[in-house]
């Protein structure tokens, strides 16, 4: 337990000490939140009620998809994971601890948004905080799972960026994060957007926590939780300490299985 706490404390501090992570964990989501509040609040009257869910989703997406994979790949390439292995750090800690600390950073950003958005931009606050917590955890679990999985299977930092952007950019356009509700998209694009975890995160956070009936949010949270658990299990299974040592147990293409819950959700019609 002591080792876990020490590791967690170091990773948390890393998320602030490291300039790139500081940018992705705090500066980018908070800057985007202020920008969106200033612009969208004026031009789109439908935006304030969905501002907090969309900005919280954005904070989670940025910190996880953009912040988590690269340090993992860099650590493997630089031999840092070898140092960890010989000193008894288990693979599960390397996969799980950065995900937990990233969720903590996203939680702090979410708190800042929830505290300031109603006063600055007349945003609606969640009415069901338990629901908000449940959906936040499910979204964090799902997105950090996907992010860690990208870090585990990527052979280089360049490929990491490609994979991360492959989910991040469509999520920005189709996931309802930027203030355009996903329900307004054409049918085909709506189906396509359901393959992306951020769409489900937005759907979960923008329902039950904001006073809507719980069923739709809980379904989304269940899909996110299933996707998250599957992604972490695959990440631990496919984990490699060193790109040269052949320690990976399976084909990296197995990572695609992590999308199965979202595919099922899309087929079921959301």
């Amino acid at each position, binding site marked *: 337990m002591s*080792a876990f706490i*020490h590791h967690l404390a170091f990773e948390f501090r890393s998320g602030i000490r490291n300039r790139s992570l500081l940018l992705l964990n705090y500066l980018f989501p908070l800057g985007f939140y202020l920008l969106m509040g200033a612009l969208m609040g004026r031009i789109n009257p439908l935006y304030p009620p969905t501002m907090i869910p969309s900005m919280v989703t954005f904070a989670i997406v940025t910190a996880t998809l953009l912040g988590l994979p690269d340090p993992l790949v860099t*650590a493997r390439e630089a031999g840092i994971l070898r140092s960890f292995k*010989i*000193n*008894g*750090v288990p693979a599960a800690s390397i996969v799980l601890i950065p995900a937990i600390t990233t969720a903590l950073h996203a939680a702090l950003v979410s708190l800042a948004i929830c505290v300031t958005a109603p006063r600055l931009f007349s945003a609606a606050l969640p009415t069901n905080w338990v629901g908000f917590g449940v959906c936040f955890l499910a979204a964090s679990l799902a997105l950090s799972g996907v992010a860690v999985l990208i870090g585990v299977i990527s052979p280089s930092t360049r490929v990491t960026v490609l994979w991360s952007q492959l989910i991040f950019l469509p999520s920005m356009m189709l996931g309802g994060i930027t203030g355009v509700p996903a329900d307004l998209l054409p049918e085909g694009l709506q189906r396509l957007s359901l393959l992306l975890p951020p769409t489900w995160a937005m759907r979960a956070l923008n329902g039950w926590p904001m006073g809507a009936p719980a069923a739709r949010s809980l379904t989304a949270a269940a899909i996110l939780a299933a996707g998250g658990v599957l992604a972490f299990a695959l990440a631990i299974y496919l984990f490699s300490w060193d790109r040269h*040592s052949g320690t990976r147990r399976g084909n990296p293409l197995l990572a695609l299985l992590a999308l199965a819950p979202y595919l099922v959700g899309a087929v079921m019609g959301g």
Partner: protein
Amino acid sequence: MAESVVSVEALTKRYGELVAVDQISFQIPQGEVFGLLGPNGAGKTSTLECLEGLRTPDGGSLRILDVDPVRQGHKLRDLIGVQLQSASLPENIRVDEVMRLFCAYHGVAPRYDLIERMNLSPKAHAQYHELSAGQQRRLALALAVAHDPPVLFLDEPTAGLDVPARVELHALIRELQAGETTIILATHDMAEAEELADRVAILLRGRIAAIGSPLELTATGAGLTKISVRTQNGSLADPAIQFPATRQALVKGEYAIYYSGDTAPTVAAILAHLEAVGDPLLDLRVERPSLEDRFLEIVNEGATA
């Protein structure tokens, strides 16, 4: 021989078509400093990394204190300390932080005394990327011994270290040896191996070309002793002068240098000659063949084989 702490039987490691380690076997008893020598690509690091559980062997069996590094990696971690040839740490981690972290994973109290011993106290709160290459290697060594492992692997431990740090490292190795720590040392520094190792194995193309104590190895070579002589009148500069058992003679500056297969008759004859010609002796140096000489001999034999 005492019971083996490290046992290697027919270890084989391949990378595609390349056989990096080819059926090598050796045993290391407790408390021995065992040197692994060899030119680049001889298989030293592959052998070490198989023993450390970082690579999976393609054949043979390995045991460290009755633990199989391949199948019982979790048990191995507390038994061995490792200073890797190429390893790194997160660039933002502080020196005291990483000591705390790794000691926690080994289940021991942080060894801040080792940070002081390695002259890293002024850098205790510095981040890893702020350390010089030498400081990073000293930190790696401190981390490797922090949990007091019975078996220690050192891969090129003095590469990049300045002279005081090297002296401190050698003192630490001797101290650990006195405390019955078994040390496997891979190095390119022959003087270091000769000074520290109880036995050495010279690897060549993945096979053990020679194994034994440094004295045994040097004794089994061509064994020519180098005799350097400087006199007041330079009477030995004449190449026509021959001495018994001398295989080669040359003049370098003010010194006449002889390579002898039998030191005593050669030295006696040189002294007798100087007495006879009335040329006072200013300096006489007798150097036995070094491990480096023997190493080069073995490598050259291997190259021509």
